């Protein structure tokens, strides 16, 4: 499903964010990519969302080769990925409903379909009663739920969550992780990029540890451990 093969990412003039990173993620897995600040884990997230291209090596997502993907095909790729970010990345002038609907509108879905699917997804994330609020009228946890709802409307095969709990308190963070686990149980591959030790340890799933741009461990049922 996701393959990184000898991936190197160098930023000019000579900052090596990643060096020879190789791993493979199977469909339906729940994988945490961990590492301290500056380790290169966010660069991996950016490669997976096609925000960056590798300097060397290959990044394969499904049938897409990110290292060669033409600019005009990136939107199509992103519609097949669910993406959740630390800062939620919601559109501030759109309501909860409109934020979620936007992901379908960009793909040209009909208004009828949007009116059917958006309330269902909002119900899944527990925000059915807040559809007409604006992001500024929601708590951090609620905003992250909107972000998850938006990433779910396309029924993505892969969900990429980059520090989704970074701005949340411990209780809300656990709720968000529970939501991601439920999404994973429905068959979606979840890639969680985080530096939250408690969350990773509680998950007890596969952990890929990145340090100084290199993969230093890849354990099937791992704990958060930085050498």
């Amino acid at each position, binding site marked *: 499903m996701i393959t990184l093969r000898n991936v190197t990412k160098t930023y000019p003039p000579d900052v090596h964010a990643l060096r020879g990173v190789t791993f493979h993620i199977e469909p339906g897995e729940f994988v945490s990519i961990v590492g301290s600040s500056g380790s290169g884990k966010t660069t991996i997230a950016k490669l997976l*969302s096609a925000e960056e291209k590798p300097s060397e090596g290959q990044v394969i997502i499904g049938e897409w080769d990110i290292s060669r993907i033409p600019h005009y095909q990136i939107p199509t790729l992103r519609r097949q990925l669910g993406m959740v970010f630390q800062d939620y990345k919601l*559109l501030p002038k759109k309501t909860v409903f409109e934020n979620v609907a936007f992901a379908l509108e*960009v793909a040209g879905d009909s208004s009828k379909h949007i009116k059917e699917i958006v309330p269902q997804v909002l119900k899944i994330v527990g925000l059915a009663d807040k559809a007409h609020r604006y992001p500024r009228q929601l708590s951090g946890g609620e905003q992250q739920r909107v972000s998850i709802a938006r990433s779910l409307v*396309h029924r993505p095969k892969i969900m990429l969550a980059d520090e989704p709990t970074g701005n949340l308190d411990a209780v809300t963070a656990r709720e968000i992780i529970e939501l991601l686990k439920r999404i994973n149980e429905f068959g979606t591959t979840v890639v969680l990029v985080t530096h939250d030790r408690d969350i990773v340890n509680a998950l007890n799933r596969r952990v890929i540890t990145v340090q100084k741009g290199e993969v230093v461990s890849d354990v099937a049922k791992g704990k958060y451990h930085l050498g």
Partner: protein
Amino acid sequence: MRAFFRMITFALQGIFRNFWLSFVTTSVLFLTLVTINAVLVLNVLANASIRAIEDRVQIELYFVPGTSEDVVKSVRGYLIGLPQVKDVTTVSADEALASFTERHANDAEILAALNEVSGNPFGDALRVQAEHPEDFPFILEAVNSPEFSEYIKDKDYADYQTVIEQLSAFTERVYWGGIGLAAFFGLISILIVFNTIRVAIYTHRDEIAVMKLVGAKDWFIRAPFLLEAIMYAFAATVIMTIVLMFALFSLEPLITRFFAGVSVNLSQFYVENGIALFFAQWIGLSLLGVATTMMAVRKFLKT
């Protein structure tokens, strides 16, 4: 079609949900149009003034007393056939005397000389109006032909010579000055509109990034901003038209009084050219807005 309606909806949402930004952008576009229309009105007024003065400038050809009516008619016919001549009026000897006296009312020497002559020294006269002030020397040359010169006693043109020369120079200065002024304000307006729209797009940079991340294609992101630019231009042009109509209604009597006796016809100018001006201003502002938006959005679409 569905995508188009969505873009219209997004554009309208963008305008009304960012009300103050929309207000400022429309205001700047409106002020741009105020500048353009002010230059336009000044140009119309200047042209009307020049036209009025031009209409009053004329040559009077005084015939030798006793010249037959046929000769006067034939000179008139010859002159009216010249493309440089706008109109020729026949003036009787009495009218010619009255007109001469009136025009030289402040010239004591001429009046004294006139008093010394017994009776009416004038014959019939022709009052000639030229199409353009610079045509007078040509017309004078034309009536100097041997065929007519023996019947023409005097040509009253010298008094106007300086006025005509000054007027021609003034007309040219107003013309080039108007173009220069319009170009200067046009350039300032373009820079202001350019920067205002760039700032407006800059405030949306995070939104553009989010739209890209959820899979929006470039044209889907760009189109609502372009439509917004066209809508801002439309709103500014409509407001300008309404303000202009009120200004014309309330100021035209004052302008007419100021230009006593001169037909300025400012409202007539806008009645005749209003629709063309409306679309020219709307399309002009829209093109400026669209070009600026394309450049500003492109910067944030690169990521």
